[in-house]
C-alpha cells in the first residue's frame, strides 16, 4: 500500500496547500509574499541533506532523541486488556514534543536571515521551546500568550522570561490561544522584514501545516522502528491528544498507509460536548470554516462567529484543528473522540500513581481514552500512546481542580 503513491494518504497537501477541501492560504495580501517565500525555502530545505544533518545533530545532542518507547506494565495490568506503550516525548529537552518543530523552523529562519522570532503559545510549551532555541542561537524572541493562560501557566511564563523572551499577555477576546495567534499575526504583518513567525501546531496557512507535520513526524518514525524492534510488528492502535494537533500528526503520519493500524485522535471535551459549547472538540462539535489562514473544522455560531473553546488544558484550548486532521476525519482514515476535564484529571492521577510519570494535562486526555478502550481489548492488542508532555506546569491547575490549596509563591 505504502509504495503505491496513488493510494497513499501521505501525498498531501496539493499545490494550493489543500488536504481535500481543507487547508489553503487565507491570509492578507501583506503576508502572502512572506508565505510564498517560506514555502520556497522549505521546499528547498526538505530535500537538502545538510538541513537534515543539522536537525539530526540537534535532535540527538540538544533534545535527547530518540525518546523511548516505554511499555507501561502496571498501567497495562491495571486496565487488564491491551498492552499499552507510551512514546515518551515528555522526556525531550523543555518537556514536550514542541521543540521537535521549533528547531526546524528556527534553522529555516536562520537560513532566511531573519533575526526576530515571534510565536503564539497556549499552555506555554511551544513558547518555552521557542524561547529556548532562540536563546541557543542568540535570536530575539517575542511570545504572545493569552492573558488568561499567563495566569494559569505562571511557571512557563517565568521560564520564558528566564530564557530571555519577551512575553506579551493578550487581552483581546477571552485571552486564550486563539487570541494569541491573532496578535502574533498582527505582529508579523507589521514587522515583515526581519521577523519569522514560528507557529506551534499543524495549523495556519500553507506551508505551516505540512512543514510542522514533517518536523513532528520524527515521533512516528521512531515509534514505528521501536515497536518493530520490541514487538516484531506494528502497533494496532495509535492514540494522541489534539489541540491544534501537532503531536498527533507527528505520531500518525508515518503510519497513515499502514491500513491495519487504527488511529484515534482525542479532543478536549471540557465540561462535555453539548450545545453549551463548553469544550474544544472542533471535529465532534464544530463545522468547516476559515480562520488563521486555513479552512478546517471550527467551533462557531450560526453566523460564522468563532466561539471560545473551553478546556482545563490550556494547550488544547483552541477552537480549530489542523486541516490534515479535518481531512483524515472526513475520509475516515482516523477516528476522533473527546474526553472531558474530569476524565482527563482521573487519568492524570492514575498515571502518577501507577507509572511514576506526571503527565501534562494534554496527553492525560489521550490516556483517559486508553483507559476507556484498553480493558475491552485482547492482551495481544498493542496500543501506542503519545506522552507528548510532562505535567510539572500543570500541578497548580490540578491542585485547584482537586480542591487542594497550594502556596504558589507567585
Amino acid at each position: 500500500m505504502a509504495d503505491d503513491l496513488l493510494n497513499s494518504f501521505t501525498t498531501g497537501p496539493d499545490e494550493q496547500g489543500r488536504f481535500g477541501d481543507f487547508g489553503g492560504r487565507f491570509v492578507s495580501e501583506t503576508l502572502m509574499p512572506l508565505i510564498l517565500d517560506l514555502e520556497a525555502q522549505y521546499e528547498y530545505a526538505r530535500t537538502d541533506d545538510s538541513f537534515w544533518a543539522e536537525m539530526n545533530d540537534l535532535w540527538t545532542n540538544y533534545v535527547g532523541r530518540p525518546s523511548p518507547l516505554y511499555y507501561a506494565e502496571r498501567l497495562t495490568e491495571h486496565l487488564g486488556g491491551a498492552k499499552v506503550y507510551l512514546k515518551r516525548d515528555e522526556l525531550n529537552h523543555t518537556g514536550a514534543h514542541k521543540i521537535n518543530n521549533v528547531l526546524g523552523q528556527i534553522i529555516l529562519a536562520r537560513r532566511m536571515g531573519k533575526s526576530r522570532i515571534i510565536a503564539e503559545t497556549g499552555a506555554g510549551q511551544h513558547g518555552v521551546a521557542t524561547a529556548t532555541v532562540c536563546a541557543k542561537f542568540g535570536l530575539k524572541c517575542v511570545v504572545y500568550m493569552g492573558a488568561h493562560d499567563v495566569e494559569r501557566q505562571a511557571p512557563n511564563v517565568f521560564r520564558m522570561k528566564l530564557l530571555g523572551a519577551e512575553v506579551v499577555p493578550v487581552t483581546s477576546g477571552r485571552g486564550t490561544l486563539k487570541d494569541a495567534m491573532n496578535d502574533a499575526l498582527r505582529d508579523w504583518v507589521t514587522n515583515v522584514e526581519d521577523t519569522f513567525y514560528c507557529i506551534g501546531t499543524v495549523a495556519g496557512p500553507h506551508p505551516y501545516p505540512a512543514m510542522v507535520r514533517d518536523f513532528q513526524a520524527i515521533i512516528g518514525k521512531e515509534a514505528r522502528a521501536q515497536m518493530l524492534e520490541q514487538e516484531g510488528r506494528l502497533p494496532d492502535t495509535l492514540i494522541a491528544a489534539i489541540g491544534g494537533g501537532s503531536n498527533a500528526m507527528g505520531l500518525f503520519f508515518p503510519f497513515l498507509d499502514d491500513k491495519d493500524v487504527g488511529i484515534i485522535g482525542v479532543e478536549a471535551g471540557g465540561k462535555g460536548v453539548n450545545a453549551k459549547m463548553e469544550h474544544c472538540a472542533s471535529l465532534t462539535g464544530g463545522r468547516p470554516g476559515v480562520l488563521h489562514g486555513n479552512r478546517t473544522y471550527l467551533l462557531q455560531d450560526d453566523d460564522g462567529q468563532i466561539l471560545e473553546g473551553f478546556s482545563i488544558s490550556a494547550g488544547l484550548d483552541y477552537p480549530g484543528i489542523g486541516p490534515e486532521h479535518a481531512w483524515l476525519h472526513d475520509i475516515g482514515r482516523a477516528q476522533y473522540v473527546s474526553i472531558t476535564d474530569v476524565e482527563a484529571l482521573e487519568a492524570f492521577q492514575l498515571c502518577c500513581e501507577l507509572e511514576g510519570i506526571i503527565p501534562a494535562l494534554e496527553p492525560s486526555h489521550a490516556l483517559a481514552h486508553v483507559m476507556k478502550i484498553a480493558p475491552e481489548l485482547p492482551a495481544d492488542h498493542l496500543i501506542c500512546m503519545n506522552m507528548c508532555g510532562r505535567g510539572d506546569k500543570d500541578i497548580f491547575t490540578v491542585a485547584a481542580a482537586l480542591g487542594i490549596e497550594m502556596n504558589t509563591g507567585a
Partner: protein
Amino acid sequence: MHSFIFQIAHICARRAEQAELRCEHGAANVTECAALGQSILNLTRLCGMSGHKQYEGPDMTRIDAKFADLKAAGKKAFVTYVMAGDPTYDSALEVVKGLPTAGVDIIELGLPFTDPMADGPTIQLAGQRALEAGMTLEKTLQMVRDFRETDDTTPIVLMGYYNPIYSRGVTRFLAEAKEAGIDGMIVVDLPPEEDSELCIPAQKAGLNFIRLATPTTDDKRLPKVLTNTSGFVYYVSINGITGAAAAQASNVGPEVARIKAATDLPIIVGFGIRTPQNARDIASVADGAVVGSAIVDEIGAGKSPAEVLAFVKSLADGAHSA
C-alpha cells in the same frame, strides 16, 4: 433608457455565459454559440463596452459610476469605513445615512467578526461592540437595505473577513448582497491564490471584488494581485494593521505610480490616515483616500452621530481640497 440597455446586456451576458459553458463542455451547437457571441458583441458595442469579458468585473456598478462622476468633476474620492452595528444598529445606520451629505463618496461598511486579524485595537473593539449589541450578517444586509431606501447612488463596499460569508454560503450571500444594494466587497483574508472561493463568483454575480495591494506586493506579484479585480484598487500604505503608523505621502506617491502603470483602475489609499491634512496629502498623490480608525475612534469615544459626521465632513473637505 440606460438601465434598459444594461438589463438587456446583463441578460445577454448571462446567456453568453451559458453558451460558453456549453461550448466548454463540448456538446455545443457551434452555430448557436457563434451567433449568440456575435449578437452579444453587437450589444456590448452599442453600450460602449468591451466585447471581451473574462471576470474583469461586472459591467457597471455604482462604484464605476461614482469614479466616472469624480473624474468628470476633477475630484478625488473620499472613502470612509465604519463598522455595521457599532455601537448599536440605529446609531450606526444614522451615521451611515449621514455620510454622503458629509462629503463621503464611497462607504466601506465593516462586517463584524470575532477574529479580525488585520485590524488594530480600534476596529477590534468596534467589532466587539457590534457583536455584543447583537449584530449579524443578516442585520448588516438589512442596514444596507435601509440605507438604499433613501440613497440609490452612493456605493457601498462590504469589508470584512471570509468566515461569516463562507458560513452563510457563497451563492446565497452573493444573491442577498446584490439584492440588498451592496456594490463591492473587500475580504481581507482572500488573496488571489483563493480567487475561486469568492472573488470570481462575486464578479459573476455583478459585484466588484476589490483587492488590497501592499508594500510587500512587489512588481513580480503585482499582475497577480490586479487580475480578477474591479472597482478600484485599495493600496495599503503601510505594513501593519489598521489604525497603526501614519502614512507619508512622499512614500505613497511612488507606490501609487507603480501600480497605476499596471492598471487602469482607480487607486485608493488607506491605513494610517487620521487628519484632514493627511487625507489631503494622500489624496493628492492617488485617486482618493480612506479613513477608518480615526472615525471609529470617535464612535468608540461615545460621540453622537452628529459629532461623528461633523468630523467626517472635516476629513472630506481635506480630501476634496487635494
